[in-house]
C-alpha cells in the first residue's frame, strides 16, 4: 500500500515543478494544473513502465501532462483565475506580468514551444517528439512565437 505513495513522492520531488509549470502554461490556473499533475502521476504509476534514463522518463511525463491539459481545455471548462498573474501584480513585478500576459495571449502552438524551449531547455528535435510534430514545424512555430512575442511586448508594453 505504501509503495505507490513512495513512488509518487519520489516523482513529485523530481518532476513535480516541471509538470506543474507545463500544465499551468496551458491552463493558467493552479487548481487545474494541480489536477493535471495528479492525473499524470497516476497514469505513470498505473503504466508501470520502465525508462532508460531520466530524460526519457521526464519527456514521457511532460507528454502526458500536455495531452491531459489539452483535453481539459477541449472538453472541460477551465477555471478563470490566474494565480500567477495575481501574484506578479501583487508583488509589483510589472515586467514579469507583462511577459506572462504576452505569452498567455499567444496561440497554444506558440506558447507551448516557448515554454518547452525556454523553461525546459528542450531542443527542437526533443520538442517535436514530445508534441508529436515534425521538427520543421516546431522550428517554424518557435521562430514565429518569438517574433510575435517581441512584437506584442514592444507594442503593448514598450519592451526593447
Amino acid at each position: 500500500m505504501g509503495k505507490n505513495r513512495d513512488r509518487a513522492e519520489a516523482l513529485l520531488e523530481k518532476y513535480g515543478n516541471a509538470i506543474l509549470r507545463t500544465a499551468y502554461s496551458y491552463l493558467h490556473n493552479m487548481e487545474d494544473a494541480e489536477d493535471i499533475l495528479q492525473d499524470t502521476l497516476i497514469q505513470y504509476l498505473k503504466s508501470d513502465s520502465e525508462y532508460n534514463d531520466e530524460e526519457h522518463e521526464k519527456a514521457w511525463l511532460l507528454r502526458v501532462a500536455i495531452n491531459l491539459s489539452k483535453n481539459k481545455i477541449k472538453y472541460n471548462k477551465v477555471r478563470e483565475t490566474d494565480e500567477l498573474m495575481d501574484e506578479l501584480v501583487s508583488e509589483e513585478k510589472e515586467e514579469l506580468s507583462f511577459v506572462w500576459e504576452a505569452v498567455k495571449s499567444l496561440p497554444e502552438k506558440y506558447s507551448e514551444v516557448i515554454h518547452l524551449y525556454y523553461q525546459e531547455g528542450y531542443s527542437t528535435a526533443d520538442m517535436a517528439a514530445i508534441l508529436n510534430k515534425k521538427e520543421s514545424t516546431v522550428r517554424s512555430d518557435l521562430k514565429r512565437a518569438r517574433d510575435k512575442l517581441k512584437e506584442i511586448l514592444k507594442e503593448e508594453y514598450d519592451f526593447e
Partner: protein
Amino acid sequence: MTLSKYNELMENIVVTEDMKSRILRNIELELDGDDAEKGNDKVTQVDFTEGKKSESKVISSAMRGRWASLAAAAMVLVLSGIVVKSIIGDPSHSGSTAVMSEDSHDAAPAHEVMEGAAAEEAMDSTDSFANDKSADSAKP
C-alpha cells in the same frame, strides 16, 4: 533578454507542501483502491458462496431478458394453438359430427335427409333447365 524573464516568472509556480500532501493522499486512494478491488476478486474466487451470490446476481440479470423472450414465444405458441384449434374445431362441423357420433341410431335418418335434399336439388336443376329451354324457344 525578455524571454529569460519567462523562466523567472515560472519560478513562482511550485509544488507546495499542501499540494503535495493532497496529491499523495488522492493517489493513494486511487491506486490502493484499485489494488483492493483486485484483492477482492481473488477473495471471491476462494469464497464460493459470495462468488455464487454475485454470480447468481449476474446470471439472473443476464438471463432475465432471455427468460422473458422465451416466455413470450411460448405464449405466442399457446395462443396460436388455441386459435388454430378453434378454427379446425368449428362449432357447425363439430355439431353435426357430434350428432352423427353420439346419435348413431339417427345416422340413417340423417343420411336419408341428405339423399332427399340431393334429389330435390336434382329436380330443381332439371326444372330450371326446362324453363331455360322454353325461354330459348320463345325467342324470335
